[in-house]
């Protein structure tokens, strides 16, 4: 069923296709025809295990791999940044080597293999539809059913003699370890959250420290997510800015090019500044913004911009049409930054559904109200 869907999708023209690895995503194909391994850019060779041919993958990332990650962060080809599911080898694994389970989002797979230079192991890549481990676990595609299926399809039982799987801890929301054991005979061990801790985990007798079990959300973790936020936001903000710029020429009498250049520029700067701040500064300063809700954090960023804008109005009142124009932005700016910061809940590592619902019930009406009033005032300000 899902394979039919994929094939159907493949035939439709899609602009994401450029970075797609042109191989049939089918586990049964992956381990049979030898030439396939040669088509995988990250394969360094092949291994024979029973009647199967397993691609042996590199543990160092090339410039192309890194560029691919960078592009995915900027939403370029991200929907198809995937590798074929199936069994892979790092080093020269034997029938006793550990089996690590991963997702078929290439960035997840790259993270894992780049940390395994010290090891001979198998990597069992699930078909998570090109989604990373944690998100896929939330959806259930990184899940019990898929693990049991892939154990079967890959012929893992004939390739290894032990019956143990090492899963990334963040796969746990989709997996019932006890059900996997019941249905496949494989015992699940949850490894650390981060691939970079795998070596320590294995060398400590498969024990993770509490620190390895905890998800972080440090400055760098947050910053790498902001390009996606910015691209998503500017898709709407740029057309909106163009419209505001054009409308800025409106006013009593004729349409005025001068007005457009003066007030239009102010409007564009304030709007795009708000979008930039909500999508980039709010995530960057997240822990230091004194509010618990993301919408509140965003509104505070908006307030800071308003202070700057107010100071500017005080010094150069001519850049605003009148005080109503200023009042309009008192509504629009914090509503915009609040909304965008609220959207960052989806990228954060610690917000709950209940919490997000709670803050949205309060924030959404305020954001809509403030934007609505702001836009009306903005139009009114053109004509008085």
């Amino acid at each position, binding site marked *: 069923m899902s394979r039919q*869907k994929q094939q159907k999708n493949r035939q439709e023209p899609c602009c994401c296709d450029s970075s797609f690895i042109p191989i049939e995503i089918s586990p049964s194909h992956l381990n049979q025809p030898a030439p396939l391994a040669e088509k995988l850019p990250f394969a360094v060779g092949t291994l024979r295990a029973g009647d199967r041919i397993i691609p042996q993958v590199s543990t160092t990332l090339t410039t192309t791999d890194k560029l691919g990650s960078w592009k995915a962060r900027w939403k370029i080809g991200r929907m198809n940044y995937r590798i074929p599911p199936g069994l892979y080898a790092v080093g020269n694994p034997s029938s006793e080597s550990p089996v690590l389970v991963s997702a078929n989002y290439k960035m997840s797979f790259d993270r894992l293999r780049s940390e395994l230079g010290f090891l001979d192991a198998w990597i069992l890549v699930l078909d998570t539809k090109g989604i990373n481990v944690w998100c896929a676990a939330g959806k259930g595609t990184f899940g019990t059913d898929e693990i049991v299926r892939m154990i079967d399809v890959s012929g893992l039982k004939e390739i290894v003699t032990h019956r143990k799987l090492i899963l990334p801890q963040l796969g746990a*929301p989709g997996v*019932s370890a006890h059900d996997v054991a019941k249905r496949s005979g494989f015992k699940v061990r949850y490894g650390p959250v981060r691939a970079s801790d795998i070596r320590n985990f294995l060398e400590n007798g498969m024990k993770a420290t509490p620190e390895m079990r905890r998800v972080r*959300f440090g400055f760098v973790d947050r910053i790498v997510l902001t390009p996606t936020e910015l691209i998503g936001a500017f898709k709407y903000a740029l057309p909106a800015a163009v419209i505001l710029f054009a409308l800025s020429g409106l006013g009593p009498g004729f349409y005025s090019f001068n007005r457009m250049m003066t007030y239009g520029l102010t409007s564009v700067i304030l709007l795009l500044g708000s979008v930039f701040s909500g999508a980039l500064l709010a995530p960057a300063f997240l822990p230091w913004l004194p509010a618990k809700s993301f919408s509140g954090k965003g509104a505070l960023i908006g307030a800071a911009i308003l202070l700057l804008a107010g100071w500017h109005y005080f010094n150069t009142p001519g850049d605003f049409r009148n005080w109503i124009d200023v009042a309009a932005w008192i509504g629009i700016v914090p509503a915009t930054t609040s909304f965008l910061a609220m959207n960052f809940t989806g990228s954060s590592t610690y917000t709950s*559904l209940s919490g997000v619902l709670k803050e*949205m019930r309060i924030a959404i009406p305020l954001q809509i109200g403030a934007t609505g009033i702001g836009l009306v005032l903005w139009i009114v300000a053109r004509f008085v």
Partner: protein
Amino acid sequence: MFGLKYLPDVTTLQLDKDKCTGCTVCTIVCPHSVFTIEDKIADIVNRDACMECGACAENCPEEAITVRTGVGCAYGIIMGAIKGTEPTCDCSSSSSSCC
């Protein structure tokens, strides 16, 4: 974590201590150290850190833990409301989105 604490008193996480056998799997899978083992039985010690990911409930062999899971994602909730489905992150999925 630094200043990264979300709203208090919102999580739907429930632990039925009578069912718990102290297997410790919840302390292993939780990404926010919500659980600890006290007197060989699980206990919730960091309740407000719960993000309702459901890893604990999914992996509890005794079904002693319940939680309403879902994406803590405003965009997903909005899209869910518009499409009339459950909140879902559409940061994904070959079938539903193409650019």
